[in-house]
């Protein structure tokens, strides 16, 4: 059992790293768009994907998303690796409905793919700090945004901690199935990890106090690229209606 647990912990941390090593190295068109605009347009795109079962409309949205990804140098392969799990899950569970309505499983899955891709485009072109300051300037409550920001930083910290524990365990794993499985010490090792992180967090808290932890407003004015993107989106909405 501990093997499974250990393995899934390790998988989880790898998965996690994959998300945090953002594709920022190459910045494309979407990266340049204001985060406030992107949050809004993402909601619109999801809304368009999930309020229809007409194949041409859903496919049109998927094509639009693909074009945006391509032109923003966001790797389609990366998007697929991030969304395939849930898309195939959706297909599997709706498959039994094939006999009632042969198109339904496919259309439902396409809707899922479209909405997941829309979110991924936002995520892969926007850093979390941009999202936080965008939310702040869209008048999300201050305490909520700072809670988001604090939690995000602690999550980074904690995963660093978790990954280092894996490394440490790995460096002294001299037998295949270790006796010291996590189950035997179960609650204790989780509790220990928790307290350890907690005490580290108390120190980080001091460091934050020492340097201040205000979240900056997003003060940037909208630029031409933002307006073109809005124009593009308006066209997509209109075309979605008429198609």
């Amino acid at each position, binding site marked *: 059992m501990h093997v499974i*647990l250990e393995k899934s912990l390790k998988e989880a941390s790898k998965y996690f790293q994959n*998300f945090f090593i953002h594709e920022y190295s190459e910045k494309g*068109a979407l*990266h*340049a768009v204001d985060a406030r605009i992107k949050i809004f347009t*993402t*909601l619109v795109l999801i*809304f*368009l994907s*999930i*309020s*229809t079962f007409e194949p041409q409309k859903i496919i*049109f949205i998927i*094509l*639009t998303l693909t*074009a*945006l990804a391509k*032109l923003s140098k966001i790797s389609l392969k990366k998007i697929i690796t*991030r969304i395939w799990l*849930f898309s195939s899950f*959706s297909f599997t*569970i*709706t498959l039994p409905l094939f006999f009632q309505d042969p198109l339904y499983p496919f259309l*439902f899955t396409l809707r*899922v793919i*479209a*909405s*997941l891709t829309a*979110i*991924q485009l*936002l*995520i892969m072109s926007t850093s979390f700090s941009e999202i936080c300051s965008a939310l702040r300037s869209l008048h999300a409550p201050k*305490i*909520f945004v*700072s*809670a*988001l920001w*604090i*939690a*995000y*930083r602690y*999550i980074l*910290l*904690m*995963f660093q901690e978790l990954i280092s524990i894996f490394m440490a365990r790995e460096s002294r794993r001299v037998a295949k199935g270790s006796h010291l499985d996590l189950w035997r010490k179960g*609650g204790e090792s*989780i*509790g*220990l990890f*928790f307290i350890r*992180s*907690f005490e580290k*967090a108390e120190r980080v808290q001091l460091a934050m106090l020492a340097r201040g932890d205000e979240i900056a407003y997003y003060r940037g004015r909208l630029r*031409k*690229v933002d307006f073109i993107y809005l*124009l*593009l989106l308006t*066209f997509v909405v209109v*075309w979605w209606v008429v*198609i």
Partner: protein
Amino acid sequence: MHIPDSYLDISVAIVFILLSLSVLTLSLHRLKKEKLSSLFGIVAAAIFAAQMLNWPIPGGTSAHFVGGALAGILLGPYAGCLAMTVVLTIQALVFGDGGLIAWGANVWNMAIVGVFSGYYTYKALEKFGKTFASFIAGWLGITLAALFAGFEVGISASFKYGLQITLPVMGIWHGILGIVEGAITAGVVSYISSRRPEILENRAPAGKIAVLGILVMVILSPLFAYTAELVNYSEPLENAAELLGLPDYSVYSGLLPDYTVPGLDPYFGTLITGAIGTLVVLALAYGMVKYARNS
């Protein structure tokens, strides 16, 4: 348990966004005077980490530790609710786990139903022992949250399975997995109460009226969702399309009269329209690339 977009009807999703926002506003109001402690950050981070361990369950879905009750017990109901909301928001905005339109429903299930039910169950049973109380709280929190998720998905017409399937699937599996949730909750609470007992003491008690209000909302929420579904406010854009009198064929006859050749396959027409739309999108996106470089 994170509901992605496309599983919920928009009407259902909006009802739960409104419900969640109102409870969240109350929680934030309550927390206004407090400074968020490092415990807050670390509980949120720990729950985030624990939620990433997904265990596949038969029947094609997966389950994971949710931690609503634990957050409530460690932080108190309001900060617990905020911590869970923050976790869910980060999951949606960093990992794409759980939808954006479905955000309200996910917050409702895990950050409100899970946290408040867990916290008050713990409070009510605390006199029988912390371990026992937190076990039951953990179990109840996840099971109730799952039932709500099952309800929201089941009532939505876009997801064709009805309540008679979604409720038992979600409820039974999470009722069983809730035992693990309960055990972890109990393990962590009893460890912390033995090592750093002061962590469990410093919570502000919740106001009675507020709690009553939230309870009423939780109980009535299925009714709201059901009403919204009946009104069927679900496809506003499609309704708009119909109102504008824009059925399929009128478009390309209007914009591209050349293609209204009698006998032309209507699918072909759609294909052409789609292709043109995509081309326009491409052209506009090229414009974006240009300006993105300039700026």
